[in-house]
């Protein structure tokens, strides 16, 4: 901020000196003319930043507006001091060259300062993220609570976070229960439940309960800090379209040199030296190569900033260009379109047994098993607030089920464990459930089937919305899974994907991606760890739920920090919009330059008007690009639900 204040002060000073110079020249005081020249020269000198930039760009072999402006201002100053008509009596006409130089310097410097400010604001998204991290933490040391600066906190210490406070560290909850708003990381505004054993991130907001968190990562090592660094790096990465703009700018210098010489020569022989000089200066001032070179980097920064505010990390300009072309999105099923953890969805009972009985006996038998199905059953028992006693003995037979005793009761779990014939009703239920892609787990007590627990992986809440949104953009959707065809078909129908491929091994997923890439630009969405090879082989790899997993963030081209799959469409829509704007800006800047240069060459513009035009062109491009930071892609508003 201090930089901008300094810039503004410089602009004001320059303006005041220029004004004072112009005013003194008309008065009758002694040495009015000399004083006027001196004041105006000071004004011109205050534009030193322009000349430093101009000279530096010359040394680096670059072409910039500042270089042309430096030459133009230099010519004007020399003309003002040397030409007989200019150094004559103190009329306004006579100091014309010098005053013009000062006004030109004023406008350019004002433009530079304004652009600098806009650019600074484009960092807004990042700054917002950064300000999320508290600078102090309340910890417990030697039995008392102390508040200390964050960089003095040590790993393994316990941080206390009150309701309404921001969490200062990455860590694990060891005491307490609360909801935490993780929007800074995931872009999702619905708060997440946090209780003992859950991970928390620095910069997220603790809502209603007090939490005690064991510190795992602080300062630069936290997830938020990593994300900020990643966004910074991404913003620095060039988009390929910039090469087009850069090519234009390299032709700029020779074209301008030729044009300026031609204009000078033509006007010199027809209209005389002074007119020729004025026109040449105007041509130099109106040229604005910067509009071409700045359009893309600012747009890239704005787009990446916008995405990061929505929990999406796009890792560079190249990916923006790839995203805009995506015609097909492939999703991994388990853990991406579905939650990835089986849940008990239905309990069917027989005879006099209740749902609670069925779950209770199943949970006793499964108590010490690590199988996902067992976990689902035990989770259900806990949900029904049951106390599960230990089994007297148990035996797990992989692929078959469990054989357990509880007191004098004999529990069998799994179709293959139960030797007796199932009833007609049970058989029908089993086949219906399996045709839906769910798993049926029969539970028998002393060889009588007392119930069937139906377990299934559940589809994420917004999976079908995500698919619908992509379809509305004309994008094809495909589901890839290692699961059997029945399960795949059932889930595919539920979500509404256009196509599915089932029973795939990880390397087969890579092959399918290869096939899909024939004729399509393919984005692949997965968890970024198990399906890393498939992500790497797609045109754009999305890792979802990537917060907290450095591997996933590292592998992906685009990381979705939360679990919201609708962000895939957001990223694509945003990129389409961003690319159109970059392209539009380049075309606009190009046309603007041609029109302005023609006007200048034919003497329709004067130097001051020329520089106003050039700055207006440049600033409009910068603003247009920077606004990508705040834009909302259209399709978001259209679809609800």
């Amino acid at each position, binding site marked *: 901020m201090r930089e901008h204040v300094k810039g503004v002060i410089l602009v004001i000073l320059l303006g005041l000196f220029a004004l004072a110079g112009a005013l003194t020249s008309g008065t009758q005081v002694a040495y009015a003319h000399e004083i006027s020249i001196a004041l105006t020269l000071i004004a011109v000198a205050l534009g030193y*930043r322009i000349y430093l930039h101009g000279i530096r760009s010359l040394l680096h072999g670059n072409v910039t507006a500042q270089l042309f402006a430096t030459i133009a201002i230099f010519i004007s100053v020399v003309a003002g001091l040397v030409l007989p008509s200019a150094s004559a009596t103190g009329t306004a006409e006579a100091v014309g060259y010098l005053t013009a130089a000062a006004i030109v310097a004023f406008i350019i410097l004002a433009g*530079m300062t304004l652009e600098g400010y806009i*650019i600074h604001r484009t960092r807004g998204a990042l700054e917002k993220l950064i300000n999320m991290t508290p600078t102090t933490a309340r910890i417990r040391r030697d039995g008392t609570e102390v508040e200390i600066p964050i960089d003095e906190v040590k790993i393994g210490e316990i941080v206390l976070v009150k309701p309404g406070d921001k969490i200062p560290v990455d860590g694990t909850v060891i005491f307490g229960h609360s909801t935490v708003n993780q929007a800074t990381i995931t872009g999702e505004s619905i708060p997440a439940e946090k209780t003992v054993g859950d991970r928390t991130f620095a910069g997220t907001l603790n809502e209603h309960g007090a939490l005690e968190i064991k510190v795992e990562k602080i300062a630069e090592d936290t997830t938020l800090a990593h994300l900020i*660094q990643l966004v910074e790096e991404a913003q620095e990465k060039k988009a390929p379209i910039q090469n087009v703009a850069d090519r234009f700018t390299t032709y700029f210098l020779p074209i301008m040199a030729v044009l300026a010489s031609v204009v000078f020569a033509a006007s010199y022989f027809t209209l005389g030296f002074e007119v020729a000089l004025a026109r040449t200066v105007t041509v130099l001032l109106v040229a604005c190569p910067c509009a071409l070179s700045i359009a893309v980097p600012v747009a890239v920064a704005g787009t990446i900033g916008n995405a990061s505010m929505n929990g999406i990390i796009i890792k560079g300009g190249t990916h923006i260009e790839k995203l805009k072309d995506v015609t097909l999105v492939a999703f991994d099923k388990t853990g991406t379109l579905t939650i990835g953890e089986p849940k008990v969805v239905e309990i069917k009972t027989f005879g006099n047994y209740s749902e609670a009985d069925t779950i209770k006996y199943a949970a006793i038998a499964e108590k010490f098993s690590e199988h996902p199905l067992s976990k689902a059953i035990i989770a259900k028992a806990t949900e029904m607030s049951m106390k599960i006693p230990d089994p007297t003995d148990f035996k797990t037979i992989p692929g078959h089920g469990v054989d357990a005793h509880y007191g004098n009761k004999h529990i069998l779990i799994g179709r293959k464990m139960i030797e007796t014939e199932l009833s007609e009703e049970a058989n029908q239920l089993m086949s219906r459930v399996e045709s839906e892609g769910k798993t049926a787990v029969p539970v028998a007590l002393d060889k009588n089937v007392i119930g069937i627990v139906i377990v299934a992986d559940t589809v994420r809440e917004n999976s079908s919305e995500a698919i619908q949104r992509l379809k509305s953009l004309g994008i094809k959707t495909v589901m890839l899974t290692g699961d059997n065809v029945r399960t795949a078909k059932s889930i595919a129908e539920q979500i509404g994907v256009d196509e599915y491929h089932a029973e795939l091994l990880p390397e087969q997923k890579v092959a399918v991606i290869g096939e899909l890439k024939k004729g399509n630009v393919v984005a692949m969405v997965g968890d970024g760890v198990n399906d890393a090879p498939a992500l790497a082989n797609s045109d754009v790899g999305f890792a979802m739920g990537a917060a907290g997993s450095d591997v996933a963030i590292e592998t992906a081209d685009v990381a979705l920090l939360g679990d919201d799959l609708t962000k895939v469409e957001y990223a694509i829509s945003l990129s389409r919009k961003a690319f159109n704007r970059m392209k539009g800006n380049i075309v606009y800047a190009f046309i603007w330059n041609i029109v302005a240069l023609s006007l200048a060459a034919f003497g329709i513009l004067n130097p001051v008007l020329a520089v106003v035009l050039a700055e207006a062109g440049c600033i409009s491009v910068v603003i247009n690009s920077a606004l990508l930071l705040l834009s909302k892609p259209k399709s978001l508003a259209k679809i609800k639900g």
Partner: protein
Amino acid sequence: MNIEKVILNASKTDCTGCSTCADFKADNLRHAIARLNGVSKVKVDEITGKVTIEYDTQKIILSKITERIEKLGYQVEILSREEIQ
């Protein structure tokens, strides 16, 4: 506290050198360095590409700082290094 002052040159090939672009890059660079734990002062000259950094040697080593700058796409050359406190 053990403050060291380092002056280095950070250059990048992809900037055409126009002032807005240079300001933009300098701004990014300044913030990125300033955020490192242990860095107390940063000055980036957007015209010459010269970066002056003061940092606490007990909290951060120089290679960590240069690594961060390189990650942002710059080539780093250390010009001078002195202990000031």
